[in-house]
């Protein structure tokens, strides 16, 4: 096969680029430690969330020093609890599911961004530093009122933080 030298140069550059991209992502996954959402959250009966130990009461609870778990339900067209209140300087693992259709879970303007699928539990761990407030929105079309589906995540100073559901 008759390949021009310039084309060989470009072929090598292109492969280099591809390997470079994969290496960068691997660096992010290992050295920086950015975890992907996976099947760790398990499954759930979407029509019986009120009987499920994790989701019968949507809430934030403390599970260790500066470690919290948030159980969140995304449904047409609200998030529960709302607001989701977490303490500053903490690591929060969100468990999110849906009783109806597929939703999105995006803490606005941040990297906390996930899909929520009925029957599945999305598990996502996020580090919160400064106190403040973030918007929360559904970014997957979920019905006629999709554009009204919003909530908020309030990061409270650690000494003000009170634990429990906010419903």
């Amino acid at each position, binding site marked *: 096969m008759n390949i021009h030298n310039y084309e060989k*140069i470009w072929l090598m550059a292109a492969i280099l680029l591809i390997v470079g991209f994969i290496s960068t992502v691997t660096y992010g996954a290992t050295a920086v430690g950015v975890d992907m959402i996976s099947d760790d959250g398990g499954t759930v009966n979407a029509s019986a969330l009120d009987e499920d130990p994790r989701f019968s009461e949507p809430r934030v609870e403390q599970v260790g020093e500066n470690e919290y778990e948030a159980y969140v339900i995304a449904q047409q067209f609200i998030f529960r609890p709302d607001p989701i209140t977490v303490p500053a300087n903490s690591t929060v693992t969100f468990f999110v599911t849906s009783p109806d259709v597929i939703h999105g879970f995006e803490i606005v303007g941040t990297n906390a961004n996930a899909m929520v699928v009925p029957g599945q539990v999305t598990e996502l761990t996020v580090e919160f530093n400064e106190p403040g407030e973030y918007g929360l929105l559904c970014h997957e079309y979920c019905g006629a009122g999709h554009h009204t589906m919003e909530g908020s995540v309030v990061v409270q100073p650690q000494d003000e933080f009170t634990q429990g559901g906010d419903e």
Partner: protein
Amino acid sequence: MGEEQVVREIGHDEYDPKGTLALIGVYFVILLVMWVFMYFVEFLGNELTVV
């Protein structure tokens, strides 16, 4: 139409696409710089680290 305005025939062996190599080299550099910016500044520099 443009097709008919050939002023010289250039065969395979006498043709080196050096302009193409230069253009695509520029593209390569843009891709590299933009990727580094998107990954390390926009993404890793963004709020809320997912761990």
